[in-house]
């Protein structure tokens, strides 16, 4: 079966700093993969390479068997229409109301009229647990958890084939984090979508992943089913999931 997403030997450096050093990763259709790893290891860069926001220096990225690196114009837009993305900060457009944010992909991307797009936006907001009266608010009036929900609603409104989640629970309290995790799992299941998430929140990873991959030193150093993460046999993974300061992963910290 053709993988939904396939990365082969993806490299990316910024100046002298090599961030991705030959990433290989395959995601099957309908599968939910979570990439874990410490802060600054290049998880977001990996995601941005797939989305086309960052161009890799080397390597191949395929979506549905089609090479997407270097795509431009209409071909790029066609690929992007398969995607839905929840940003770490939600990245809501602050010049638009909540419903206009949710309907943005429908109106600008799919060319839907504003009336039907409004109806669809209200329906989508309800799917993430937000009432109709939220629709007319500005993003600045929302709490962090509500912003994430609106961001999720915007990501799923166009019924994408592939969903990306960038640190979906960062900055939320544990209860709201769990609510978001449940909504992500439900949305992915209902859409039958393929999902790629990046996080350093293990609770989130366990909840939304079918498979976990760990990124370290610019490479995927371990990957396997979510059930195997506790007995991976990999020291890096063990140190990371137990949150130990001592181990093979050395954090860059100033010592007194």
């Amino acid at each position, binding site marked *: 079966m053709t993988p939904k997403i396939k990365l082969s030997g993806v490299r990316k450096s910024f100046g002298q700093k090599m961030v991705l050093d030959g990433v290989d990763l395959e995601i099957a259709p309908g599968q939910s993969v979570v990439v874990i790893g410490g802060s600054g290891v290049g998880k977001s860069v990996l995601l941005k390479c797939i989305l086309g926001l960052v161009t890799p220096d080397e390597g191949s990225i395929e979506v549905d068997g089609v090479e997407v690196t270097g795509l431009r114009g209409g071909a790029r837009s066609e690929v992007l229409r398969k995607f839905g993305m929840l940003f770490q900060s939600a*990245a809501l*457009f602050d010049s638009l109301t909540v419903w206009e944010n949710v309907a943005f992909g429908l109106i600008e991307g799919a060319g839907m009229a504003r009336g039907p797009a409004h109806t669809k936006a209200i329906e989508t907001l309800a799917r993430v647990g937000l009432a109709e009266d939220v629709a007319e608010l500005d993003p600045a009036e929302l709490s962090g958890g509500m912003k994430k929900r609106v961001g999720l609603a915007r990501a799923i409104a166009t019924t994408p084939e592939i969903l990306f989640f960038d640190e979906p629970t960062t900055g939320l309290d544990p209860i709201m984090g769990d609510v978001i995790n449940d909504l992500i799992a439900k949305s992915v299941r209902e859409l039958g979508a393929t999902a790629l998430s990046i996080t350093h929140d293990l609770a989130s990873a366990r909840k939304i992943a079918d498979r976990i991959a760990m990124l370290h030193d610019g490479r995927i150093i371990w990957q396997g089913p979510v059930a195997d993460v506790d007995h991976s046999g990999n020291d890096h993974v063990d140190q990371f999931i137990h949150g130990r300061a001592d181990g093979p992963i050395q954090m860059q910290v100033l010592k007194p």
Partner: protein
Amino acid sequence: MFVITFLATIGRTFLNFLRVSGRLAMFAGRAMDAVIRPPFYPRLILKQMASIGYYSLPVVGLTALFTGMVLALQIFLGSARFNAESAVASIVVIGITREIGPVIASLMVAGRVGAAIAAEIGTMRVTEQIDALTTLATNPFRYLVAPRLIAAVLTLPILVLIADIVGVFGAYTVGVVKLGFSPVAYIQNSLDFLQVMDVVSGLAKAAVFGFIIALMGCYHGYYSRGGAQGVGKATTNAVVSASILLLSADYVLTELFFAQ
């Protein structure tokens, strides 16, 4: 050693200048491509026209009024040295339509609108809103840059026309009330020597200045980095670069229109 360091500094500065010039030229090229190719966003263009034009009216109007008043007074005092007071109305109207109106209005708009464009797009950049636009299959150049460029190019000439009228009115008021000119004679003197080209050249300049202001605001905002500090820097750079570029363009355009 000092000589090598000095030469290296010059070399680095020159290479950086080339890098920035190239990036700006590519940005301008992408922006122009976005202006002429669909999709177009008429709602956004109208919104930007209101933001650039309507909300700039008070600052442009007041600046033009006082500049016209000062100009009339200064030219009267200067021309009195060689008994040419009767030329005040003609000189003022030519000066305002050709130069003062377009330049003063555009500098005011550069300060108000150029900064606002850079701040808005810069904030969108550092909060990942521009990335979000891209992932929603929307070209940021068509959605953000093109409407601002089109609106600025269309709106600046209207603003300058208003600045011309208000400026001439300010000069007329000073001329009649303070300097003792006859109202009819002042208007007659203004119209006798005013040519269509004086007004048209000023409006053409305004369109070019509008393009420069919007381009600089969008460019510096689009490439801003590093949070609030980066957005602040982008805002300052947008106003400074737009002001310098529009004054440079003013000279070039004046040569083009009027050099014999």
